[in-house]
């Protein structure tokens, strides 16, 4: 919306500040001036305004002038709407409001002998040509320009009908089923029975409060005019406008609440401008009103306001005096409120209370708090002090905050960047990644087909991001995402926290001297183990299933993937991306991807670090070169050693796994490193011999055989 300061000042003869200061002061009071443009000597400035939807009353020149008057405490000039004497009518013009719920007031004024022509500056207060030129407002005819002038001046929509096209009189009613109306935009519209129309005794003339009708519009031949100024219900206008896909100046205002009392004033202003080019008024203003709607708007009950409440809500001001009764009275009076003191004795004391009559143009004011806001606003927000509330209760973190930080911290330390992807995915992606495909929740108005459902898993988003990096020629990618996954029905949606991770490329990521190697399953398994190590779990293990079992998710390579199980519950899956899925995303490199269901991990307590005594006595490492059948996994050896429960066997690990041509296809070699140490003594040779024998026996029982000493030595030369 645009405002001319020249026009504003015509309402504020005592205003002393310049246009820049005025703009600043208005902005700081919520009547935001977004831009100021100098219009040249004598023309003032043009303000580009941005006014919030609740302040529809200030979206016009008089409304802004009223704000300025309140800010500076200067008088606001009343609108001059004196009209010449009317000629007697044979009978008053007929106006009937049928839709009593939707039309609160309808005024009609008959003008005869009008000359349709061009606009000019008609009289002081009606500088149509000057203001329209400065605003670059389109000229149409003196009649239409007059209604636009009233709109720009005071924000009240009016309409001028060609009186000779009206049959009988005006009826404000709901449209009839199948009724048609050609509106001013040239559209032929079929009306809905809920549409509110201004009609005559035969047909619909206009969409009430939205747009006039083509057949009754002003033309150069028009001689007699009916000036309409009315008050329509916000909801009725909003629904009519929406049904027809229309948003007009008039509908904008009525939807947000027009001034019940503005109709006669606006009608007079329009009429006076029209009459300035000749013609006469016939009869008195016809003013049909619905009492119930008038009660709800212009004649609302006064609101009680207490100074104590103003101070309780607003607090301290920079000025030590604070908000006083005098400030409250001055501000509200300037805004058009009527204040009646509720005290006999001291009307301006600390316990001042008022009954406040609300102005008809401020439908946003309904409650005491609305009045308190007005006091704060006009007084100036920045004149309030900066204070701090007294300290409240203790601070509590979310119950899973530490768990989330542990998961995030572990993945960051493992070299994964944190990412955030879309909350949505396609139905096809959901079907391929959902743990429960029957529980995918679709959206009613998705952004696109690719974002048609709430993500049931973070895997689709992760694969999209990994593929994105590869397609941008970023060959090393390590990402994780902590996010919400969704399941359930359209009636009840369940949200769970999850973490996904994806990796592709070489290790180390950046080295000049050593060739990198492709990241593989066990690199990612290590990261998963590190994450699991952050919680206290009695039992955590990895397992896998044959493809026939149908348990492994479809996105994983059936032989290079694992399920993660903690205390008997599946907490996630990870492994190499299924080559079929990789091909579908044009990925050639092996991608490692996985997802952990954090709601399940978060139920376990975080592992608390605890120190153990570190032995001062010499540890002794012994290597065992084992030969194993291909069918025997490391897990079997590991378990056998654990079951030994030998306290002096403090650590064991795989030092190397290798194929040996001499062994053939069916067997492989594994070099086991075992460390023996006692907390209280140096181990004697005899003891070591015994422990070694026990280890050898245990792994032997698990199916391993020891290579001969000679073989072992030739092998150990490799390390």
């Amino acid at each position: 919306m645009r405002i001319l300061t020249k026009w504003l000042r015509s309402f504020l003869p005592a205003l002393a500040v310049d246009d820049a200061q005025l703009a600043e002061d208005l902005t700081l009071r919520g009547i935001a001036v977004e831009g100021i443009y100098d219009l040249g000597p004598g023309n003032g400035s043009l303000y580009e305004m941005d006014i919030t939807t609740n302040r529809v009353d200030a979206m016009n020149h008089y409304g802004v002038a009223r704000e300025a008057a309140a800010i500076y405490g200067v008088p606001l000039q009343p609108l001059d709407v004196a009209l010449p004497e009317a000629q007697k009518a044979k009978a008053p013009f007929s106006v009937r409001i049928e839709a009593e719920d939707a039309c609160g007031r309808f005024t009609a004024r008959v003008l005869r002998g009008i000359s349709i022509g061009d606009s000019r500056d008609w009289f002081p207060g009606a500088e149509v040509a000057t203001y329209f030129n400065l605003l670059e407002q389109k000229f149409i005819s003196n009649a239409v320009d007059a209604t636009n002038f009233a709109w720009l001046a005071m924000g009240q929509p009016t309409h001028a009908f060609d009186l000779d096209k009206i049959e009988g009189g005006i009826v404000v009613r709901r449209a009839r089923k199948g009724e048609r109306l050609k509106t001013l935009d040239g559209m032929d519209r079929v009306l809905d029975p809920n549409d509110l129309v201004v009609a005559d005794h035969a047909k619909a003339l206009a969409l009430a409060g939205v747009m006039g009708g083509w057949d009754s519009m002003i033309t150069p031949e028009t001689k007699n005019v009916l000036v309409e100024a009315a008050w329509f219900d916000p909801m009725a206008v909003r629904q009519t406008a929406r049904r027809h896909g229309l948003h007009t100046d008039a509908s904008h205002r009525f939807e947000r609440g027009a001034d019940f009392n503005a109709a006669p004033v606006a009608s007079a202003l329009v009429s006076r401008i029209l009459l300035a080019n000749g013609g006469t008024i016939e009869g008195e203003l016809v003013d049909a009103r619905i009492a119930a709607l008038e009660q709800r708007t212009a004649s609302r009950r006064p609101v009680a306001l207490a100074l104590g409440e103003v101070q309780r809500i607003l607090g301290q001001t920079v000025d030590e005096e604070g908000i006083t009764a005098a400030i409250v009275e001055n501000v509200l009076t300037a805004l058009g409120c009527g204040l009646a003191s509720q005290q006999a004795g001291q009307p301006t004391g600390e316990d001042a209370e008022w009954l406040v009559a609300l102005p008809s143009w401020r439908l946003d004011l309904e409650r005491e708090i609305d009045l308190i806001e007005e006091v704060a606003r006009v007084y100036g927000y920045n004149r309030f002090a900066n204070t701090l509330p007294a300290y409240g209760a203790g601070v509590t973190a979310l119950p899973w905050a530490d768990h989330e930080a542990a998961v995030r911290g572990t993945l960051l330390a493992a070299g994964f960047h944190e990412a955030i992807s879309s909350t949505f995915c396609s139905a096809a992606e959901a079907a391929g990644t959902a743990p429960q495909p029957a529980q995918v929740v679709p959206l009613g108005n998705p952004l696109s087909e690719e974002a048609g459902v709430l993500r049931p898993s973070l895997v689709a988003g992760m694969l999209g991001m990994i593929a994105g990096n590869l397609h941008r020629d970023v060959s090393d990618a390590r990402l994780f995402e902590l996010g919400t996954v969704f399941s359930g029905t359209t009636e009840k949606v369940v949200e769970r926290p999850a973490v996904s991770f994806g990796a592709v490329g070489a290790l180390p990521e950046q080295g000049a001297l050593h060739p990198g190697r492709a990241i593989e399953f066990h690199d990612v398994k290590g990261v998963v183990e590190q994450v699991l190590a952050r919680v206290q779990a009695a039992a955590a293990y990895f397992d896998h299933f044959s493809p026939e079992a149908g348990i492994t998710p479809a996105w994983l390579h059936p032989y290079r993937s694992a399920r993660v199980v903690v205390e008997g519950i599946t907490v996630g899956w990870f492994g190499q991306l299924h080559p079929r899925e990789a091909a579908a995303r044009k990925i050639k490199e092996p991608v490692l991807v996985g997802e952990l269901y954090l709601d399940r991990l978060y139920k376990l307590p975080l592992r608390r670090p605890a120190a153990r005594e570190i032995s001062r006595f010499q540890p002794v490492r012994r290597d065992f070169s084992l030969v194993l059948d291909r069918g025997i996994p490391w897990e079997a050896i590991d378990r056998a050693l654990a079951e030994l429960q030998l306290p002096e066997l403090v650590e064991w690990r795989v030092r190397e796994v290798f194929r040996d041509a001499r062994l053939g296809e069916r067997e492989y070699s594994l070099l086991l490193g075992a460390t023996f140490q006692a907390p209280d003594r140096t181990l004697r040779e005899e003891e070591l011999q015994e422990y070694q024998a026990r280890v050898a026996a245990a792994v032997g029982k698990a199916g391993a055989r020891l290579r001969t000493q000679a073989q072992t030595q030739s092998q150990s030369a490799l390390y």
Partner: protein
Amino acid sequence: MTNEAIPNLTAFDEAALDHAFAALEQQAAADAATLDSPEAIEAFRLRWLGRKQGRLNEVSARWLKAAPPEAKKALGQRFNAFKAIVEGLLEQAAGSGPSDAALAAEAIDITLPGTRRLTGAEHPITRTMNEIVQVFAALGYSVGVGPEVESDYYNFESMNFPPGHPARDTQDTLVVAGQERRPQRDRLLLRTHTSPVQMRTMEQQPPPVRIVIPGKVHRNDAADATHSPIFHQVEGLCVDTNITFSDLKGTLDHAMKALFGSSVKTRFFPSFFPFTEPSADVQISCIFCGGKGCRKCKQSGWIELLGCGMVDPAVFAFAQEKQPAYDPKRISGFAFGMGVERIAMMKYGVSEIGQFFAGDMRFLGQFV
């Protein structure tokens, strides 16, 4: 290597002793200068300090024995001093390790780049959100969260957006399918702001309340450089007896200084939100130009950063349905909210909001 035998001494006066020991020192120093391997060092030790054939042993045997009693003291002092010198030479040689030539053979090109392991970077949105949360934690605010899929009641109605209210138009909403037949208040949607957690929190606990609510929100907005259908907010809510508008001002002024530096100024001006009254928008003095005016602040010297206001009594009335203590005549409160992406874009100089959600390693790696 010195092979000269230890001469016999004939005179034991000061000058003769000085001369004799000076010669020995010279020999030892010359010997020590040639030591370039552990073996040579061991040979030096044996030659000079060996218990049986060491030259010092020989000096002691020949000179001390031959010396007249009156010269023995001076000779002994000189002997001990010399022994210390030899030991020093040995220590020096042993400590100096392999020769420079041996080390030169091991030279590397130190200008080659270092081998780097990836250091994971926290997402700039997480990082910014945590910074904001920590500022308020220091002011006594706990963290609150709520679901991303919300009911119409919590997202709109209880936040004082009545059905059919024009303010709903400003927040284009993504909805879950199949809601048309359900009662309006139960209809499920993607929350458009984190404000519903305000109501959820008040329903759960009586005042006082001090919470910050970080979270993901969604709107049915077309994506462009500064808009994304997915974004994050941090909201705050403070409810107690005697919470005032000036408390709101002081709290946010403090928070902005903590986030952007103590020289940052704030200013408040009226705005409109259905769930607060009075409502305000808060600007901070431009963090790029300090308020002088630059491109980033469109020459205004100010940047709009958050919305806030005193909790509307209508919102308390909804909370009172479950917690009668939220009587707007007895308690009061304020709420505020800010967009995390906007703050992160400003703090880190990000020009496209879409970069936050693309998972591009090159972008994310900058936040290590």
